[in-house]
């Protein structure tokens, strides 16, 4: 199995290598990795890969992220369409 090319964030197609390299190169937090690579910013809202990204960054830079704030998520926790906001029943 080709580990470096394993896709971690499927929504934005970000590989393990890209995330680890970005974290090492910039010695940055998981949030900065997210903003630089778009990992965890796709359709699912990082629900699938958020913890993986945090763990990869933690391992890559050897300690907890500088700001130690985990990647956040906020309402709405699932994508909501404008028709739903407008009161349409699903």
């Amino acid at each position, binding site marked *: 199995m080709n580990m470096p090319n394993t896709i971690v964030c*499927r*929504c934005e*197609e970000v590989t393990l290598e890209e995330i680890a390299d970005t974290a090492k190169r910039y010695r940055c937090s998981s949030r900065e990795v997210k903003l630089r690579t778009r990992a965890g910013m796709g*359709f*699912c809202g990082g*629900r*699938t890969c958020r913890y993986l990204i945090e763990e990869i960054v933690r391992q890559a830079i050897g300690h907890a992220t500088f700001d130690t704030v985990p990647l956040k998520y906020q309402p709405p926790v699932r*994508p909501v*369409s404008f028709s739903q906001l407008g009161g349409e029943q699903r």
Partner: protein
Amino acid sequence: MMSGRIEHHPILGPLHSRKRIGFIFDGRTFQGYEGETIAAALLANGVRTLRYHEESGAPRGIYCNIGHCYECRVTVEGKGNIRACLTTIKEGMTIRSGQKLPAPFKKGGDQAWRTF
């Protein structure tokens, strides 16, 4: 049509006969059973690709199958981003897969889509 279904489960027993339902996926007609999800019915018909990634065009299918990851999102009756793994099929339901989107402003990519 029965391909891929467990017809004789050692614990759950034989698969009970259910109502057959016809539906359309990308213009092709398929048969499924009442109560099956779009993803399950298509899988039983040998269709594993539910959409293509918007930017890269890489094929996508069932990933989490519990409504978590949105990898199986399809267009159902004109409504976009419906999860195939949670939505049950209905008679005559029209489903479209997601396709690669044009990226005319991407460096070195998709010149054919350029309209300016």
